């Protein structure tokens, strides 16, 4: 199984600022994803992080708000830009191995 780490684990940010979340997997995965989760709620897919090219975004999510990079097979970043209190959530990185998807511990973001 893949072990996925994220930094930071949590942060409190001011409205209008940006935060970049880093995700590292310990083995090569075929795909990487970013999800958002309100505490106690289900997960919503933000985008698929593509190595060396632009991410593929789900409906309701745009690159200007959530720019994503994946410079190699095992590392990705998600930036939450121009934050508002509505962006307060848990952001989860995920990597898919052969046929199973694994998740990082999440980044708990609070926007004041």
């Amino acid at each position, binding site marked *: *199984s893949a072990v*996925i780490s994220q930094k930071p684990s949590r942060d409190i940010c001011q409205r209008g600022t940006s935060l970049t979340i880093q995700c590292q997997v310990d083995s090569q995965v075929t*795909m990487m*994803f970013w999800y958002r989760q309100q505490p*106690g*709620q*289900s*997960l919503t*897919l933000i985008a*698929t992080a593509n190595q060396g090219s632009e991410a593929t975004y789900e409906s309701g999510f745009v690159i200007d708000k959530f720019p994503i990079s994946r410079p190699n097979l095992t590392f990705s970043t998600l930036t939450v830009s121009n934050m508002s209190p509505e962006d307060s959530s848990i952001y*989860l990185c*995920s990597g*898919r191995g052969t*046929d*199973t*998807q*694994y*998740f*990082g*511990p*999440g980044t*708990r973001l609070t926007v004041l």
Partner: protein
Amino acid sequence: AQSVAQPEDQVNVAEGNPLTVKCTYSVSGNPYLFWYVQYPNRGLQFLLKYITGDNLVKGSYGFEAEFNKSQTSFHLKKPSALVSDSALYFCAVAAGNKLTFGGGTRVLVKP
């Protein structure tokens, strides 16, 4: 488009009793089905999966799930629940490259 339903927001069970968490799905083609567990302030942990083969799938921590194609269900079960099983459980279905999650079921195991 694929979808997953977890009809119970919460399941309460006494320690030592059987635990069942329900899940039904809708997907075109063959379903790839998963169960994950999330403990407080933690990420999702993989429990088990059904890809093909035996309808009864065994996973981590004594959990198992039964795939029923005719009822489009994939219920999670544990014969004897522990207090430490108290957590949030998610069923998910994969179609193509995307994993779609159910709304989650909170399990509370009382001593």
